[in-house]
């Protein structure tokens, strides 16, 4: 019965075709460093899932942000687990994304025909760092406040346009409610939209072009 339903669905949706194209790809003999992209994707999905759950309680307002996170940590069942995964997953994702880039670089996997994959990867790195930067402010504790003060101040040193960029990031001259809300918006809507859009292109290219083999000595 189950097999019949699957066959019925497969005939209409082409599930086997998708499975074969996406997962049963031919790959050259590679090593564990080639799992870093999948590891990063897995972490991105975990961040999305736990982030969605956190938004059920978090309030992006200076009066309530800190208290709402305290509430998640101390009063909500498994709140410590959901936030813990999100917190450590963020750190881990920056690490895997950088290692993934180093692997690609040192194996020369960015070369023809994979230049566009590399470029989308560079943007993915930037967006990931942006996610880390905007997420860091959201607990609205002393560390978050001053880290963001310092982080946004750095942009001020850019000649001519620095002060403008600083104010654009902060939504004014100082850190305020506006900063918190725009960082929240960037963290849960703008950057994730960019992130998952780029991931789509990145993975499409990986499937289309296949992965490169480890270069041999005479190459």
């Amino acid at each position: 019965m189950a097999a019949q339903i699957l066959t019925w669905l497969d005939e209409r949706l082409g599930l086997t075709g998708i499975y074969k194209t996406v997962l049963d790809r031919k790959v050259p003999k590679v090593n564990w460093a080639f799992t870093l992209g999948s590891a990063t994707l897995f972490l991105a999905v975990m961040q999305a899932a736990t982030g969605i759950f956190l938004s059920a309680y978090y309030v992006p307002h200076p009066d309530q942000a800190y208290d709402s996170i305290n509430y998640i940590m101390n009063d909500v069942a498994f709140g410590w687990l959901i936030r813990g995964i999100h917190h450590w997953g963020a750190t881990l994702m920056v690490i895997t994304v950088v290692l993934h880039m180093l692997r690609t670089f040192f194996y020369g996997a960015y070369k023809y025909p994979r230049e566009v994959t590399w470029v989308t990867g560079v943007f993915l790195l930037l967006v990931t760092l942006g996610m880390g930067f905007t997420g860091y402010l959201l607990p609205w504790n002393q560390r978050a406040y001053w880290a963001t003060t310092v982080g946004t101040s750095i942009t001020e040193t850019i000649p001519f346009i620095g002060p403008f960029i600083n104010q654009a990031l902060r939504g004014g001259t100082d850190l305020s409610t506006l900063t918190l809300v725009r960082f929240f918006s960037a963290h849960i809507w703008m950057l994730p939209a960019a992130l998952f859009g780029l991931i789509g292109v990145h993975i499409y290219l990986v499937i289309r072009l296949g992965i490169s083999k480890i270069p041999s000595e005479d190459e």
Partner: protein
Amino acid sequence: MAHAGPEYGLSRRSFVTGVVGILGGIIAAVVGLPAIGYLLSPSLKSGTATKEEWVPLGPIEELVVGEPRLFAFTRTKQVGWERTANSYGVYVVRKAGDSYDVFSNVCTHLSCRVSWKEDENEYVCPCHDGRFAKDGSIISGPQPRPLNRFEYKIEEGTIYIHLVEA
């Protein structure tokens, strides 16, 4: 999942597929099952149900017969991380023979606070000029009911009211 043929044993491919499936299931369960509890957690807390309490107002010996006296107290309510302080006003009138009238100062019309006017011998609501007699009954105004009464008790010279919150 595992296609263990008797002649070939478990192939490498089906072993890896199986292990990936099992690990994936475990990871999904580790995040997914607590997530259900996480989302439902505040809804299942019993603290939000009806709360009742006997609130001590003060000593009865200071009360003069026939003279309404306002007692005030506040109670803090916490929902999630948000605390709200509610203030309550209670008029106590000592009557002859050690019985008492205990009224809430909330007008029965639109919940403004009434106050006792000694010179007019009435409770007056400032919002729509509702007027109540000393015993809480309606004199004039738009209010539909007499002042709400609290259940009370007296223990060791102190008057308590029964505060029931929805």
